[in-house]
């Protein structure tokens, strides 16, 4: 039986392992990057504070964004770097404000991004083991796989990005699929019966100017007119019912990894999609995980993704027997350019919920 002090020490040793730089970003951060990247949904959970000049700050809600922002700011974009961290984060939810301790790693610009993900999985596995959790429930999610399916499925182009944006939001996704399954209602005809795109743009521009809206701010008349026409066109050209069925079927896959991959492979063969590459990558990491944690149950849940669209490739969660998330992470290749990197930078990382692990130890 270890003491809390010994467990903390063991975790610190893991965080400060050779070849990795432990960093300690400020506790007080600008809130805007979080709203810009994660939207109002995540913004609700921030502990916000106002500067005297009205600028919004928040208590550090997680480590990835400040660490990555600092890497980009130092002009390191593209260079391999390995960071780790351990310290408090602050969130609020239904039960009020809470302080948690998190530890984690961020591997940026690694030459072998798949190997980097294996290292991240290893870190998470070892961190859990410090707290005696050797058989967590592991949930894998495939962002790249979903994107491959979405890219191959037959549908009007306009729907692909909208479906992608709803990945990770099961309710919003279900709602959109229901809508696509039902016929789209055509918009009410406007009075002037504009013939052609140019006339429609003129009409909207006139309306905006007459009403005192600046057509150069926000949605342009061209955008409104284009979407209006698109809506008419989409009302005529539906997403084929087979595509909606396929997406529903795919998103419902939630099974032990091997069985889930076989099911998806069969689905791909049936529809004639080439899913070989993303499936092979998923299988490879599932094998790594099985070797790392032979007692753990590894599932693949096709609908699982963090609600952040900068995740790519593969994502994962490790859960307690009660379903509490103990570790979560994955690949997030799109984050670095969002934060200003001039070149694409592969990235993988994870966060481990130390406070929850400590509670778990007592069970």
């Amino acid at each position, binding site marked *: 039986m270890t003491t809390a002090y010994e467990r903390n020490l063991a975790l610190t040793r893991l965080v400060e392992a050779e070849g990795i730089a432990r960093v300690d970003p400020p506790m007080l951060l600008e809130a805007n990057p979080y709203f810009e990247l994660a939207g109002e949904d995540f913004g*609700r959970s921030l502990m916000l504070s106002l500067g005297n000049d009205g600028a919004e700050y928040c208590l550090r809600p997680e480590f990835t964004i400040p660490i990555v922002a600092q890497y980009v700011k130092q002009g390191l974009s593209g260079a391999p770097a390995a960071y780790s961290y351990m310290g408090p984060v602050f969130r609020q939810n239904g039960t009020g404000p809470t302080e948690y301790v998190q530890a984690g790693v961020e591997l940026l610009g690694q030459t072998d991004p798949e190997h980097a993900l294996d290292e991240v999985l290893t870190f998470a596995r070892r961190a859990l083991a410090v707290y005696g959790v050797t058989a967590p429930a592991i949930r894998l999610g495939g962002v790249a796989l979903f994107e491959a399916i979405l890219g191959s499925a037959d549908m009007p182009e306009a729907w692909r990005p909208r479906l992608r944006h709803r990945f990770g939001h099961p309710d919003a996704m279900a*709602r959109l699929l229901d*809508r696509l399954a039902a016929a789209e209602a055509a*918009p009410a005809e406007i009075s002037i019966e504009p013939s052609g795109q140019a006339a429609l743009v003129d009409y909207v521009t006139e309306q*905006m100017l007459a009403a005192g809206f600046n057509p150069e701010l926000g949605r342009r008349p061209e955008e409104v007119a284009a979407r*209006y026409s698109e809506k008419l066109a989409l009302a005529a050209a539906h997403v084929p019912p087979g595509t909606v069925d396929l997406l529903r079927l795919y998103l419902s896959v939630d099974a032990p990894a091997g069985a889930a991959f076989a099911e998806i492979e069969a689905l791909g063969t049936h529809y004639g999609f080439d899913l070989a590459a993303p499936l092979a990558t998923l299988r490879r990491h599932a094998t790594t995980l099985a070797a790392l944690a032979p007692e753990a149950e590894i599932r693949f849940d096709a609908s699982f993704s963090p609600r952040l669209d900068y995740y790519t490739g593969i994502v994962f969660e490790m859960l307690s027997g009660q379903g509490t998330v103990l570790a979560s992470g994955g690949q997030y290749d799109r984050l670095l350019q969002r934060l200003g990197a001039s070149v694409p930078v592969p990235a993988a990382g994870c966060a481990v919920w130390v406070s929850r692990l400590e509670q778990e130890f007592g069970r």
Partner: protein
Amino acid sequence: MTHLTLGIPSKGRLEEETRAAFAQAGLVIERNGGARSYFGTAPALPDLIVRFMPAGEIARELIRGTLELGVTGTDLIEESGDETGAQAAPLRALGFGRADLVVAVPAPWIDVTRMTDLADVAADFRTRHHRWLRVATKYLNLTRRFFSRHGMVEYRLVESTGATEAAPASGAADLIVDITSSGSTLTANALRVLEDGLILRSEAQLFLSRRADWNPERQTQLKLLLETVGWIPPGSAEV
């Protein structure tokens, strides 16, 4: 002894109509020091403390439990409270202060008539403009909950404390969520309410705080007050 405190809106028509509604029901509320005084009395109930406060503060104090009873708008209670609605209970709708909380977009957005349109526009907007669609409102919580129910995820809220309807024309926001009674202010600003953009129907109501300290003395006083005005809401015996 502990007193029962009743919060009454401190200004304008809301104050007049609240006092008129109580007077009509048999409880005259006097504001002895005139409009500059923040305390009032009800001669029929000498133990009742009447406080004149802004309607928003009444809602917040009811939710927090620092005020036992108060007259305020449904919109303000729902905005200040959490999603369970368990912190304050309506005792009586007073029949005035009616207004709707709605989602309104620039009328020239001819392609946007329903929330599903807005969700699509929001999803495309960020890719095109490198910023989120901005929504001006005073009702941050109600807007977040409503949008989340409609699968609308890509937007930013811009807090607005006055003249929200001017935000789209000034460029401060792309659309608004605001309260409207006749719709004329929206029309005057060339804004159009979405067909399914009604978030809430609000009106002035007498609310009871469930979080307040309802000791036996206060419960007795509450019973007395409700008997005086003759408003016996269903289930009111149990606070």
